[in-house]
């Protein structure tokens, strides 16, 4: 946002600078189009599907049907990262694999698709970064802006970069959940008995057809004896399971990928709402001070004095059969609850910076020539506190992910069949010491990794925007960890 502000001050607008020297911009734009086109149908499918879902929530669901069918149309189109292009499911007929990508073993076919997703995301992000560099080199009027320093500091902050990598890994897994898993949630988790699969029966030397539900019964991980499909192994039906199967025989990796989706959806959703509330209140209280400030202080104190996890438990029970708990199997209720519970923490974190910026001369100057308060807050104060908001939102997001998994561990909240990591931990509880240890351990390790990643990213951003802040981490970090303690 710094760049745009500065460029606006220069007499020649960005459009003219682009026109005067279009080469690098065109090259970059073409590259971006190519990258987006490769996966175009997925984006359109997702976008239209989300709009359709949103419309479906409105009374009467106007136009939801049309969007759903358009979304279905795009999901049929071929694209790069699809199960159809690189299928990993097939059967071994005694001499070769049938139905898999290039006749490879399902293991390798899946691995290729999995890696391709990450390569694609890496290239896309690299290209966006290249776009920023191009902009900086060719089109930005100023040689230097403070943002450059922030970015440079972040680039040399290895702990923060580690966090960023983990967060990108997690978001990719959530966003491309239908592609990265060895199977889909629809087939394997939600309706295993309404989908068929083929496998090769070595005894009769024939290809048999079986419903996935029946096959799952044979691939269950139950600790003792033969019934275990551990990490990096095949089950009896030639299906590959990168991190093993659940007690029900369903694929754990697919479960985790779709579980990541739910966690991320709740985390981002609640942080977006809480962040909006916190920013608005911080700006208003820093601008008007006095009674407004006191009211918000009291409200936030009151919200923070309520035991968060217990409040969520109570609300989940009370709203169990309410329509709001039906939306995305309870995720919507969680978003609202966590937004309402976590905004005071965010507000406390940005209150200091907001008060600081409110004292600046440029705010006074803007006031004195009669700019409207809302414009002052938005243009002259908000950019300064958004960095801090990001720091604490990232920290709190980790806490929300832990809380959500804790609640599904207790059997509350996100209801089956929607996967949630905490539920896998609960299911696998009694098998930890057996050969089926993967059911509980892998989701737990994943939660730890993702939460560490968000914490590290938050450390990185904090050190980047405010290099002197090292010592001040104490209270805020403690509070955020407190929130995450559930």
């Amino acid at each position, binding site marked *: 946002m710094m760049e745009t502000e500065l460029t606006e001050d220069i007499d020649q607008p960005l459009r003219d600078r682009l026109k005067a020297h279009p080469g690098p911009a065109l090259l970059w734009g073409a590259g971006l189009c190519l990258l987006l086109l490769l996966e175009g149908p997925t984006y359109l499918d997702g976008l239209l599907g989300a709009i359709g879902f949103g419309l479906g929530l409105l009374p009467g669901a106007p136009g939801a049907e049309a969007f759903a069918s358009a979304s279905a149309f795009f999901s049929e189109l071929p694209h790069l990262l699809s199960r159809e292009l690189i299928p990993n499911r097939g059967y071994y007929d005694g001499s070769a694999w049938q139905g898999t990508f290039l006749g490879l073993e399902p293991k390798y076919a899946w691995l290729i698709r999995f890696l391709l997703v990450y390569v694609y995301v890496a290239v896309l992000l690299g290209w966006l970064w290249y776009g920023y560099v191009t902009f900086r080199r060719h089109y930005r009027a100023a040689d230097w802006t403070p943002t450059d320093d922030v970015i440079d500091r972040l680039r040399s902050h290895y702990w923060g970069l580690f966090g960023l990598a983990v967060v990108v890994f997690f978001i990719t897994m959530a966003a491309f959940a239908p592609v990265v898993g060895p199977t889909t949630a629809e087939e394997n988790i939600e309706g295993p008995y309404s989908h068929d699969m083929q496998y090769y029966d070595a005894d009769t030397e024939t290809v048999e057809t079986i419903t996935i539900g029946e096959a799952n019964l044979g691939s269950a991980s139950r600790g003792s004896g033969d019934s275990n499909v551990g990490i990096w192994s095949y089950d009896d039906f030639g299906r590959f399971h990168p991190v093993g199967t659940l007690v029900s025989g369903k694929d754990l990796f697919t479960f985790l990928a779709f579980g990541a989706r739910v966690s991320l959806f709740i985390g981002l959703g609640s942080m977006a709402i809480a962040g909006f509330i916190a920013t608005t209140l911080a700006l208003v209280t820093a601008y008007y001070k006095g009674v407004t400030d006191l009211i918000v202080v*009291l*409200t936030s*104190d*009151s*919200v923070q*004095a*309520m*035991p*968060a*996890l*217990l*409040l969520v*438990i*109570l*609300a989940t*029970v*009370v*709203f*169990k*059969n*309410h329509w709001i708990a039906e939306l995305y199997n309870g995720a919507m209720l969680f978003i609202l609850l966590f937004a309402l519970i976590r905004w005071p923490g965010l507000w406390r974190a940005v209150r200091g910076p907001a008060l600081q910026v409110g004292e600046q001369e440029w705010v006074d100057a803007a006031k004195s020539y009669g700019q409207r308060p809302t414009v002052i807050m938005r243009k002259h104060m908000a950019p300064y506190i958004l960095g801090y908001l990001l720091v604490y939102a990232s920290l709190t997001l*980790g806490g929300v992910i*832990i809380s959500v*998994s*804790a609640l599904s*561990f*207790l059997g*509350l909240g996100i209801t089956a069949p929607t996967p949630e990591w*905490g539920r896998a*931990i609960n299911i696998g*509880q009694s098998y*930890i*010491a057996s050969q089926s240890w993967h059911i*509980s*351990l892998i*989701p*737990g390790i994943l*939660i*730890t*990794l993702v*939460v*560490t990643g968000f*914490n*590290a990213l938050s450390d990185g951003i904090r050190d980047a925007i405010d290099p002197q802040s*090292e*010592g001040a*981490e*104490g*209270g805020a*970090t*403690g*509070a955020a*960890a*407190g929130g*995450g*303690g*559930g």
Partner: protein
Amino acid sequence: MSRATYMLKRLVLSIPVIIFGTTVTFAIIRLGPLSPAAAILGPQGDARAIRQIEQRLGLNEPLWEQYFEFMGDLFLFDLGQSWVVNSGTPAIDLIISYAPRTIWLGFWAVLIALGIGIPLGFYAGLNPNTFSDYFASFGGIVWRAMPNFWLAVILVTVLSQTEQLFGFSWTSFIVETNVVTSPNLAVLKNPTRLITDPGQAWTNLAKATKQILPPALVLGSASMGTEMRIGRTAVLETINSKYVETAKAKGVSPRVLVWKHIFRNALIPLVPVITAEAFILIGGSVLVETVFSINGIGLLFFRAAEQGDLPLVGTLMYLFILLIVGLNIVQDFAYTIIDPRVGYDA
């Protein structure tokens, strides 16, 4: 402003906080889509029984009357009774019988967290950028990010299988105990037995302590990591401050320097962490007590919520709010004593 006025102001400001929290609880319970009477009886309850319970709970009175009655009862500590979990028992009796185990758990959780987290953090801060510092810091970060219910589940498994895994038995280590069970605290209710009947009483005390250590370790885990990190930063900051340099220059011995000049000042930023721990303990006790099946307040709350015992849930919520507000006041009071520079107008 003097300390007394400051504390008085603090007390007065805590009243709206308590009223707010209790009002929200009332709103969720009475205005939420689940009627308390229907929740108590479950899906099978017939209309007449529901009406009877509504009558007894006063649900058919006007809402504002219900509100004032609810608030009035709680503020006068007329805490009502349990309807489902332990039907007919006054809530206060339930709480008195469940609370000691949670307090015992919380006591050890704080003690373990302090006893491990602070020394480790100070050690890391005194030896910055060494291998042991990196090891301790990284350990603290990961330890803090671990979901404590997961840690609890793993600890339960490992401790029940120590025989096969490590070749020694945790259950028969020193005193015979089970891993997943409530500690028996009878001996603490009657401490004179420690003298009159030492053999039996001390064994019981050892058992209760040994049983509580694993859950306390789990419950204290998040704060342990935080205390470590903040302890490290605090020591680093103090070491680099001018007065330490002065003390060094005038020839204060390293031991006195560490214990007298660094240690005491580095403790200040740890105060809010220690009280913040209380909040973690309240939320975390639900999970840890469930996994270790300890009959404490957390488990009582969870059962009450799960089984639809909403009147009991409301009472417990009120007590938790009181506890948190009380701890906050204690923290602010401790602050004014430890660090007189703390502004009273905050």
